[in-house]
């Protein structure tokens, strides 16, 4: 592994929510054009660490992040970095679907409009259609793009949010349990999308499904009680983990 393929590099990251030390001494290198899975028991800090990567933790008053996170070798916590611009580059799909109270079309067009990605209405239409197709939801909504996004089912809302996130063409896509509300068919479609995104982007996905992690990811990170316990090739983590905690988790003994 050479340094030029490393997209995100984290060093000694600590996150505190008030007095709660949620992330402890995390060091990790996330490669470009790779899918990295974060696994671990509930409350171990997967979402928290994910939110560090696009500085979403800035919006939480009590949250404090120390350490060093670099994307393309640029410190994203540097004063010169504008978190707003960072988030345009590092997209995010949240654990709970959160469509805006707008039409399906406007939901997807939101990011491209803000960042001025489309010159003409027809460009925007193309972007929206492409994003909805990649989100595996185009066929279901193509006849009702003007209907409110909040009127969709939970799984459809989640795919809408995925489409919304990819519409801005981020370089890194952070996905927090994107399939937790999806049926097997939609899950398969999203996994296909992740695989496709990997051609150009770096994808980080939090998941509670070992099978999913094994299917979609090349690298896997196992978190436990705020520590990054083990990080490596997915195959290796699932076949011969080094740490006993990893082994008990993937064999179902802690969870």
């Amino acid at each position, binding site marked *: 592994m050479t340094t030029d393929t490393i997209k995100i590099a984290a060093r000694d990251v600590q996150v505190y929510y008030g007095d709660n030390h949620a992330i402890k001494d995390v060091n990790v290198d996330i490669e470009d054009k790779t899918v990295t899975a974060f696994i671990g028991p509930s409350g171990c800090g997967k979402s928290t660490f994910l939110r560090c990567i696009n500085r*979403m933790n800035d*919006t939480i008053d009590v949250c404090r992040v120390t350490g060093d996170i670099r994307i393309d070798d640029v410190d994203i916590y540097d004063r010169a970095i504008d978190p707003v611009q960072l988030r345009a580059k590092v997209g995010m799909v949240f654990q709970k679907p959160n469509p805006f109270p707008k039409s399906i079309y406007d939901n997807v067009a*939101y990011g491209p409009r803000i960042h001025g990605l489309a010159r003409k209405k027809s460009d925007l239409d193309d972007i929206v259609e492409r994003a909805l197709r990649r989100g595996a939801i185009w066929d279901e909504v193509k006849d009702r793009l003007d209907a409110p996004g909040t009127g969709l089912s939970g799984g459809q809302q989640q795919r809408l949010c995925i489409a919304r996130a990819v519409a801005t063409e981020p370089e890194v896509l952070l996905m927090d349990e994107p399939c937790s509300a999806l049926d097997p068919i939609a899950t398969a479609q999203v996994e296909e999308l992740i695989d496709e995104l990997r051609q150009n982007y770096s994808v980080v996905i939090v998941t509670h499904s070992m099978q999913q992690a094994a299917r979609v990811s090349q690298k896997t990170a196992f978190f436990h009680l705020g520590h990054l316990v083990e990080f490596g090739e997915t195959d290796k983590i699932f076949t011969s983990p080094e740490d006993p905690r990893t082994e008990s988790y993937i064999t179902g003994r802690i969870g």
Partner: protein
Amino acid sequence: MTVTSHLFGLPLALILLIAVGVIAATGYGVARNRALSRAGGDARGLHSLPRYYGSAAAMFAAVPALGFMVIWLLSQPMVVQNAVLPLIPSAEITDAGIQNLIVSDVSRVAGGLDVAMAQGVLDNAAITAMADDPKDLRDTLGALGVAFGADVKPYVLKAAQASRTLAGQGRFWMLIVVLTLALIGAGIGIRLADPAYRARNVVERGVLVLLIGAASLAVLTTFGIVLSMLFESINFFRLHDWKDFFLGTTWAPNFRGDSDLSILPLLWGTMYISLVALLVAVPIGLYAAIYLSEYAGPKVRAIAKPLLEILAGIPTIVYGLFALLTVGPFLVNIFGRGEAGVLGVEWMSGATAVLTAGLVMGIMLIPFVSSLSDDIINAVPQSLRDGSFGLGATHSETVRQVVLPAALPGIVGAILLAASRAIGETMIVVLGAGAIARISGNPFEAMTTITTRIVSQLTGDTDFASPETLVAFALGLTLFVLTLGLNVVALYIVRTYREQYE
């Protein structure tokens, strides 16, 4: 048989209340113990807990008896009044107003005599003695605090005496019936106290009836208010052409009669001042709410929110003073006084104007709009903001394009509520807007509103049969319909948006 209105120095109603209470309490104890003993002293053999048997008996004893008492107390004065009406010589009753005066005199004399008897100033013999010539009665009753404008006439005294007798008889029968009802109710409750009896369900239904009663009382009161306004308004429209009222353009009441009473100038003033107020209150209130809920840190919020709430707690009359003494002269200084003024213009001559009242009313509404909007904005889920930030939107883009649209129905509702407050506001316009009814687009002129005209038509020497007074009810009814319509529209908007976004 008659009963005086006070027994042992206590009002009869209070004594009855205590008596019924005692009966109900006894019924409670007896029914409870009876149910228990019939279950062999084991509460598990009962359908309900023992206290429910007691409660049911107490309920049976108290509710019908007290309900009957309330109805009796409310209706007795009316019945008595109608019964003594024939005693008044028909020659004295020249019109409905005079009849009302005589009737109220009769009831005051009757009340005065009761007081005099209770204090031992007069006795039955003395009253009978002055039946034909009750000259001294005015002074006697005056000394007891019951003042009369003229000497008491013999027929009034006669009618008063008759009504006292009737009232006494009425009280006697009330006493009998109430106590009987209470005893029968308690008896039924006790008899029913059997282990198989579903006392708990009965009490449950009783509670339900109580709650429904409270709710319908509120609704009925509203209906009563509307009805009474409606009747007086109908009286008004008998005396005054409705077309002139709704479509005429002059408001010039004249207490010698033949007035121009048209609502349009008042409605115009009301709308104009409310519009100015909303133009002030909505942007400022909304921006304040956005700042407080989206940007301000906890420390600023902890200070600013209570301050805004203090603003909301200031009585409107104080705002009125502020308008009259501070804002009005300040505006005159800017927009008036010719060369001596700030702008050197002569637009505004007096301190009272649409602008003065509108500005101050706007200030009054700021906390109202901002605290409602603040609640609504805070209710927008954080996950929506996160979603927007996560796509690389700035804070103000997020507020404008996600938070405000999501909060819009609530905000529209808040604005319409503020509008209906502005329309109903009185004190600020009394002091700040002047009293001239006119239709004009100039905000520097004095104008007046529906509310202030209602006040002025009903204060001072008024004759409740003249159109000049009755117009107040028609104005009030129009105001009510207006605010009702506004609230309905607000609800409609809120609901349509909600359907769209939920």
